[in-house]
């Protein structure tokens, strides 16, 4: 790693990028206006990209507010909040500043409405439609053009007024609103299983089919603020930490057991859609744990993971399919070991030539492999064997059960993926402390030093590729069974990027991190399939934000966390030796 430009005169200008930098000799008024303009850009972006009009279809609180409106309100409110943040001012001034900033953002929206009534640009910008203008003006049409402006000013002023409240009240309020937002988003997910239980009436009272009911919203708000208050006054977490270890375990063990039971019965009664979603999450957890060996432990960024996924999927497809391209009609369970072994062989062969490549070059080389395999799978060259774009169909389910059994449909895939994930997690956990695992970590830290202390790079790296490939192959095999077919179009670079990203978001080298990463990056977007157009937009924003706020991941392993806290980890002497780098 090279020493970069920390603290150099040039980077001194960077804080000016940040409108809210307190030390800048910018008058408050100018800062307010600048924040307001930035807010205007964001609000316009939300409208024109289509987030407001399309998310308007999904209610957050039934009959009161939709997700699209919430996004707009949030942006106006945040504008006022940022504009008045960190300023010690009189109360009137704070509210006025917030109102100006929020109002400025609103003016942009009003201008949009007025402009929209004059010219129709829908041919190019499909979202600049009457639907959007209707949302902005509460369906008043052009006459209501003042509404966004007024709403912006009111919301901004409110945000400024929040600055007056004590930090404690502010915290409680935020906790309440965040809970409201989260529960409103996942109302369907919570409601479906509740309907099957004796609490069905409660579920109907609190949750609508999408979003909360009005009563539910009030209950959630009160409950979350109350809970937050209890936590603040009683400090339950500190109390818990102060308990003697034996008592602590007495509380922990039942909780863990409860969590385990929850995981086991999770797909039951969720309905086929949610069951499918969690099956996919489990599948990605499994693959993530596989890549975690290659990337998290050995530090080899493999963006061609989908190649091995494809090998596994096609092997299972060829061996089990009862349709045109099937060659053996084996049962699933006999085909899986073969798929894993074939993927491993591929891993070894693709790993061999790229042994000496490192860093981001490796990422590109492996991505090249992934693309080669993907194109070959869909090409006319291999069409007689793999079916080209038509793919291999009629891949049987692993376990044939009657449709009403608890193992029906995606549920059995969930359990299979869960077992696979547990197995891989176990292997990864045992490997990490072993000689091989420590060798991988040594390679990740510094290849040259690792070689110098006698680690056989070739063997160690090839093993990392092979194991990663084996688990990707297993993932592909399960995927083929989940979908029941395998097409060239299922083999996409996106799979590789998804798996790599979920490890990085979750925390490199950490097993719980992979699970959290899969839930956030795979599970959440799947739940918002109806907005699938925007899935990758949020995904991208999440990746960028994550890299700046918490580059070590949500739940990093100890070593990685330490590295990030000390900046680079492997070169502390260098950075402390040169005062410039500080």
């Amino acid at each position, binding site marked *: 790693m090279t020493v970069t430009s920390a603290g150099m005169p040039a980077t001194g200008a960077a804080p000016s990028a940040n409108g809210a930098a307190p030390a800048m000799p910018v008058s408050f008024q100018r800062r307010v206006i600048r924040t307001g303009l930035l807010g205007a850009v964001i609000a316009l972006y939300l409208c024109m990209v289509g987030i407001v009009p399309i998310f308007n279809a999904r209610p957050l609180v039934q009959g009161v507010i939709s997700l699209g409106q919430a996004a707009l309100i949030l942006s106006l409110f945040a504008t006022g909040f940022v504009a008045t943040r960190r300023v010690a001012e009189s109360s009137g001034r704070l509210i006025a500043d917030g109102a100006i900033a929020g109002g400025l953002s609103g003016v942009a929206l009003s201008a949009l409405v007025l402009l929209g009534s004059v010219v129709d640009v829908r041919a190019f910008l499909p979202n600049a439609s009457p639907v959007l203008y209707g949302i902005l003006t509460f369906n008043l049409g052009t006459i209501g053009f003042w509404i966004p402006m007024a709403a912006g000013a009111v919301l901004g002023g409110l945000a400024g007024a929040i600055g007056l409240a004590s930090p404690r009240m502010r915290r409680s309020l935020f906790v309440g609103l965040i809970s409201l937002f989260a529960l409103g988003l996942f109302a369907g997910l919570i409601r479906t299983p509740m309907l099957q239980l004796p609490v069905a009436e409660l579920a109907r009272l609190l949750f609508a089919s999408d979003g909360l009911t009005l009563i539910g919203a009030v209950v959630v708000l009160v409950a979350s603020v109350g809970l937050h208050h209890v936590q603040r006054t009683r400090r339950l977490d500190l109390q818990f930490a102060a308990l003697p270890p034996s008592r602590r375990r007495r509380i922990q063990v039942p909780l863990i057991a409860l969590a385990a039971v929850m995981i086991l019965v999770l797909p039951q009664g969720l309905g086929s859609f949610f069951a499918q979603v969690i099956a996919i999450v489990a599948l990605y957890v499994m693959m993530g744990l596989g890549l975690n060996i290659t990337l998290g432990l050995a530090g080899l960024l493999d963006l061609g993971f989908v190649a091995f996924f494809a090998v596994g999927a096609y092997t299972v497809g060829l061996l089990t399919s009862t349709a045109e391209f099937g060659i053996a009609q084996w049962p699933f369970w006999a085909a899986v070991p073969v798929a894993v072994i074939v993927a491993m062989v591929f891993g070894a062969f693709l790993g061999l030539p790229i042994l000496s490549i490192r860093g*981001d070059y490796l990422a590109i080389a492996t991505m*090249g492999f992934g693309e*080669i395999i993907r194109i070959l799978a869909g090409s006319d060259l291999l069409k007689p064997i793999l079916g080209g774009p038509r793919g291999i169909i009629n891949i049987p389910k692993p376990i044939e059960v009657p449709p009403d059994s608890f193992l029906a449909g995606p549920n059995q895939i969930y359990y299979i993926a869960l077992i696979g994930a547990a197995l891989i997690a176990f292997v990864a956990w045992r490997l990490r402390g072993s000689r091989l695992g420590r060798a991988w970590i040594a390679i990740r830290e510094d290849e040259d030093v690792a070689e110098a202390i006698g680690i056989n790079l070739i063997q160690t790296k090839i093993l990392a590729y092979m194991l990663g490939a084996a688990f990707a192959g297993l993932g592909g095999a399960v995927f083929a069974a989940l979908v029941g077919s395998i097409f060239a179009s299922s083999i996409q670079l996106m799979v590789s990027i998804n798996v790599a990203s979920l490890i990085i978001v979750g925390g490199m080298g950490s097993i719980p991190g992979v699970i959290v990463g899969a839930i956030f990056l795979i599970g959440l977007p799947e739940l918002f399939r109806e907005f699938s157009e925007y899935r990758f937009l949020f995904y*991208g924003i999440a990746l960028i934000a994550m890299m700046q706020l918490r580059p070590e991941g949500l739940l990093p392993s100890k070593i990685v966390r330490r590295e990030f806290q000390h900046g680079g980890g492997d070169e502390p002497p260098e950075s402390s030796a040169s005062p*410039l780098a500080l």
Partner: protein
Amino acid sequence: MKASLIERLTEGAIVAFLWLLRVAVVLVVVVGSALTIMSGRYSLEVYVGLVVSGLTLGSIYALIALGYTMVYGILRMINFAHGEIFMAGAFAGYFVVTASDKLGFLNQGAVSAMITIVVAILVAVAVATPVALLVEKIAYRPLRNAPRLVPLISAIGASFVLQYTFRGLFGPGIYSYPTVDFLDRTLPISGIIVRYVDVIVVISAFVMMTGLYLFVMRTKLGTAIRAVSEDKDTAALMGIDVNRAIVTTFGLGAAMAGAAGVLYALLFRQVFFMTGFVPGIKAFTAAVLGGIGNIPGAMLGGLFLGQVESIGPTLFLDGFNVPSPNQLKDVIAFTMLVLVLVFRPSGILGERIARSRA
């Protein structure tokens, strides 16, 4: 430490494997070409046509590759979102060309078409550059001191954001560029078919590349860029504004990519939100081929890749009777990428990026 017998055996096996790989690739190329040529299926005109289209495509790749190579040279990061900057340029150009078409100006002759194209390129540059600078400011600048994988992931994120912002703004459909009659006319040379669009693409690409090269080699800011990519800390000590050099690099790369976007769209006549993805990866391949961090290398790599992609499927694969060899042109490109990374990671022209830096 003395290597054990097994270790020496595995090392021998790997060397043998790598040699096998080389021999196999050379065999495919040589035998395939010989078989294709001997089969006499294609006339000389066909080959010349392929070379021409390879030159056109290659000069576009070269333009995009410049952005990759310069940013990599200065920051040692792969600007994964560069393909999206290219796409932004193609979109901007689309609106100019369409407006000109709607006004009835576009097809009034060679001059009006040329004016439209020049304006489209200028507008594309004016759109692509701020987009790239915004991406740099938001997604890359805060991460300059972070470990290497962090900016790469951020760049992947930026790439998603740009793709889906354009999709959100303009919808998922494919916009087709209006037909420019002038571009489809052929040069009055007997025997071979060269369309005006090829000539224009190649000439404008070369003009821009020459301009960039002169800028980097002759101006003060260009010297600053070279100094910063040589050694950032020393450059800062010499009083060079490192930030300015980096921002200029991003801006120059984006300007080239934006212009390339228009040229690409004139050639293929369509643009949608994923337009940037494949050319982006190809151009990165070109940059690696030429030796990343090396400006003439990127140009050479682009032209080389264009030729291989254009002529490769027909020349290497057709002789083996591979069905629809053109589907496999990307396989050839990526195979070449992997081979270059394996056997000559410094690229055709590059010596500057040593193994330790790669």
